[in-house]
């Protein structure tokens, strides 16, 4: 027999620490005491991702969302909500409205997330075109082919305020308009699916979960600018996304939604996939076009912009996956609809891949203007393992870090750039107190140096010089003068590099020096790494008081640096020690410490 109600009690670690366990037990007791145990099932759920308001209790099927519930509230919840069918207003998150009626206009509902780009992701079978069609798929294409002129389509985009989601944030309607206005017998539409930032997987997930949304948008773009051929440039490391795209394209072709004379409109559009070999610089549009043509992926000076002279010298409109995934919704719901979401200069939503030392890592889509704090602490559930938040890196290797005091900054195109970071394509890596900010900067620098194509000197030479300086600091040989030199080189790279890769390479270092200057100083002046990450600056030591001489550490040490007799305190020979940390992990008595 089915239950009448289901009571979900958050069992996430945040809520559990504020007695959600007791709430759970009390609710079960109350159900029995008030005689509804047969009708109600009380269960523990995973984190609701809203720990700030915890402990959280949700009652289905009414979808009543109760926050800051105390164990003593159990009685009232059962007596009022379950037995009398009245919501306990005092505990509701949204005291005025029932939570189920959340609308676009009052977006500030509890989940804080809102899916436009990911509308079908996790909902439909991506390998079944019928499911996409059932959820208004190809409805926008219908409109674009039969009702709207190219000017209308671009007009809707203009109204929507959609800006490129790949990082640069150029208004999409302008790009389309430029390409439309360019003279050419042949024009191309290109989808940039060369997602390269470490920790970024927004585009991959979009293509894996909803490939048709991108295909449909490329056709609409083709109609708007007068192109009949499209290319999707995607990295070969995304085999599942490629497979799903291929399946989607084959199904669309079979239905006549791709190819000649689409739906009898006379409009033709063909699509091909081009695989990239995984070079980061190929995410830069001119390098990407070079790669499609079969050349080495290197940026070209702009102008001429691709809209004028792109693929094989023809006018080309190139958009990022996430940008394209917005298009069908804009055509269906009207540009104005999207423009209502977000902030003054940034409309719509943004998808972020939330990773690092976060409790709930995942794919997050929020309206522009959501703050970093809301994403990290409300949606992400804060830092894993109860550690302290140190910083968040947004924008990948091109972005920078932001610390606690900037967490209330609304995320949009302008907001983060003014703080020396950037929204970027949407990777968001959270760091806790155990992460060394100089070490992180070194990681990103190494990445950028490896990925520099070598064409222009500021990026090629500047990047390597920056890396040398930062390595000097993590080795404990840094001086104050090095910091000045970093600034100098960074400045030269910012103004002299050919493309965004070189221009933004210094960002992780610069933002670290700006917001966590003390940590840099500790490395330079005190020759210490506060987080205990930089190997040359730390030593392992055995506390003779705590060591019982179990020999566990000595047996684990790969270089034989630990000596001592059984049942007597051991010693580490720091001259031989390679600081691998194996002894630290092996000691069960907490006798080994890092300095």
């Amino acid at each position, binding site marked *: *027999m*089915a239950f009448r109600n*289901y009571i*979900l009690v958050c069992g996430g670690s945040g809520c559990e620490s504020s007695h959600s366990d007791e709430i759970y037990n009390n609710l079960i007791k109350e159900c029995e005491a008030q005689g509804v145990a047969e009708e109600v*099932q009380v*269960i*523990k*759920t*995973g*984190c609701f*991702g809203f720990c700030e308001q915890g402990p959280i209790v*949700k009652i*289905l099927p009414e979808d009543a969302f109760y926050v800051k519930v105390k164990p003593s509230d159990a009685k009232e919840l059962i007596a009022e909500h379950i037995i009398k069918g009245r919501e306990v207003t005092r505990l509701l998150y949204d005291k005025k409205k029932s939570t189920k*009626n959340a*609308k*676009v206009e009052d977006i500030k509902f509890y*989940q804080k*997330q*809102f*899916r*436009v780009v*990911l*509308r*079908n*992701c*996790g*909902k*439909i*079978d*991506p390998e079944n075109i*019928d*499911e996409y*069609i*059932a*959820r*208004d798929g*190809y*409805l926008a294409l*219908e409109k674009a082919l039969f009702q709207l002129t190219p000017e209308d389509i671009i007009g809707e985009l203009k109204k929507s305020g959609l800006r490129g989601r790949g990082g640069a944030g150029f208004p999409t309607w302008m790009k389309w308009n430029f390409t439309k206005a360019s003279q050419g017998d042949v024009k191309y539409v290109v989808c940039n699916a060369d997602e390269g930032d470490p920790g970024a*997987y927004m585009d*991959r*997930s979009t293509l*894996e*979960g909803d490939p048709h949304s991108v295909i449909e948008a490329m056709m609409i773009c083709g109609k708007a600018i007068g192109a009949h051929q499209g290319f999707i440039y995607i990295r070969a490391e*995304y085999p*599942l*996304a490629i497979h799903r795209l291929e399946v989607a394209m084959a199904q669309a072709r*079979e*239905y*006549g939604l791709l190819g000649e004379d689409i*739906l*009898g409109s006379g409009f033709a559009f063909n699509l091909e996939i081009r695989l990239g070999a995984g070079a980061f610089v190929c995410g830069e549009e001119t390098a990407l076009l070079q790669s499609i043509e079969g050349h080495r992926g290197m940026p070209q000076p702009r102008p001429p912009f691709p809209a004028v002279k792109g693929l094989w010298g023809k006018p080309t409109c190139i958009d990022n996956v996430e940008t394209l995934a917005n298009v069908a919704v804009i055509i269906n719901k009207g540009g104005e609809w999207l423009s209502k979401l977000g902030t003054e200069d940034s409309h719509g939503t943004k998808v972020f891949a939330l990773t690092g030392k976060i*409790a*709930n*890592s*995942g*794919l*997050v*889509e929020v309206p522009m203007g959501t703050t970093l704090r809301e994403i990290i602490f409300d*949606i992400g559930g804060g830092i894993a393992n109860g550690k302290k938040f140190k910083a968040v890196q947004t924008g990948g290797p091109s972005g920078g870090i932001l610390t606690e005091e900037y967490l209330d900054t609304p995320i949009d195109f302008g907001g983060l750039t003014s703080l020396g970071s950037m929204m970027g394509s949407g990777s968001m890596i959270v760091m806790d107190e155990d992460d060394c900010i100089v070490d992180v900067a070194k990681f990103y620098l190494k990445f950028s140096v490896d990925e520099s194509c070598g064409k222009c000197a500021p990026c090629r030479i500047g990047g390597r010089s920056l890396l040398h300086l930062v390595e000097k600091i993590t080795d404990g040989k840094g001086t104050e003068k090095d910091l000045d030199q970093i600034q100098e080189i960074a400045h030269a790279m910012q103004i002299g590099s050919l493309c965004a890769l070189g221009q933004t390479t210094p960002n992780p270092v610069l933002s670290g020096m700006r917001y966590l200057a003390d940590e840099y100083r500790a490395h330079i002046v005190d020759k210490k790494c506060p987080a205990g990450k930089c190997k040359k600056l730390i030593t392992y030591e055995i506390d003779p008081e705590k060591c019982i001489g179990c020999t566990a550490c000595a047996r684990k040490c790969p270089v034989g640096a630990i000596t001592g007799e059984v049942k007597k305190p051991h010693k580490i020979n720091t001259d031989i020690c390679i600081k691998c940390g194996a002894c630290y992990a092996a000691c069960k008595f907490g006798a080994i410490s890092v300095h």
Partner: protein
Amino acid sequence: MGKMTLEDLRKLRKSKQDAIKKRDIEGKNCHVIVGMGTCGIAAGAKVVLDEFINELDAQGIEDVMVTQTGCMGLCYVEPTVEVVMPGMPDVIYGKVDKKVVKQIITDHIMHKKLVSEHVFDRPAADILKKD
């Protein structure tokens, strides 16, 4: 189906939409949706999908449809599975393994009880739902 005209597309959309609605109302079917993005597959979603098919087969349960979908956004608790069936709230289960698959089938699908400790909230609102 071969090449479609505009009429065909509209008809297909309507019929599919009706089919989905019918499933919700009449509710003969139970729908199990396994999150099969890269994140899900890496965490073992394929094993979960296979286990659902095998276990439903073994138990002789026939009115359950098992399909795949992309990333639901809950990457920290992959593999994720959504169970949609009449008379029960739509539920997303996380951290699903072979054992949990069996629990979902016996508790949720057969006895209409939720599986405690594995329920996760939908991460985001659906804009396409008619309000």
